[in-house]
């Protein structure tokens, strides 16, 4: 005999299981991904899956406070993704500039008084 309540709990558990399988897939991609950009995509996708899991968890425990956790987590994950992408982009731009100038890898600029700006 299946009432609505048990139907909803079965659906919640099925959704949680599917989300966990998806997280495992994304973690495989995160470990395997050939480039840095693939790993950034995997981390972005993982954060979206965690937000979805928090939404399902709020239905499961019937507390709306998990929604606030999900909003805060989405904000922080977006900022982290943007920071990583800026890092990759800036590294690529500097590598291209270095290759264009046909100079070897410049050491890190030390601001110890001497002028080595080119």
């Amino acid at each position: 005999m299946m009432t609505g309540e048990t139907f909803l709990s079965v659906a919640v558990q099925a959704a949680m299981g599917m989300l966990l399988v998806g997280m495992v897939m994304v973690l495989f991609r995160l470990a395997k991904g050939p480039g840095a950009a693939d790993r950034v995509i995997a981390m972005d996708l993982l954060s979206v899956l965690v937000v979805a899991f928090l939404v399902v968890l709020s239905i499961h425990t019937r507390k709306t406070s998990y929604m606030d956790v999900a909003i805060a987590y989405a904000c922080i994950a977006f900022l982290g993704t943007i920071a990583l992408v800026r890092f990759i982009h800036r590294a690529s731009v500097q590598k291209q500039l270095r290759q264009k100038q046909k100079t070897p890898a410049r050491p890190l600029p030390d601001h110890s008084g001497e002028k080595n700006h080119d």
Partner: protein
Amino acid sequence: MTIFIEFIVSFFLVLGAFFALAGSIGSYRLPDFFSRLHGPTKSTTLGVGSMAVASAIYFSFQSGRISLHEVLITLFLFITAPISAHFLAKAALHQRLHQKKEGTEKIS
């Protein structure tokens, strides 16, 4: 709470979980970087949106008043996912052009 609402909430939950799972499998299986960027991002965003709809229906009928947290989550994700995907595509495009000029193979 009627059983009809439970069915609707369960339908949206399983639909969203299905889309999220499809996006994750696509992220694992797709061969190219740009297809991995294109497909799973949109599919997973749709999955989260569907789950947020399910949660909004559930809490609206449970507490008797309209709950707007889920709408906020959906709005935020629908705004930020294209932004991050655009930045990622720009960075990867720059990297790939650079590497193709360098003579090595693709980054995917």
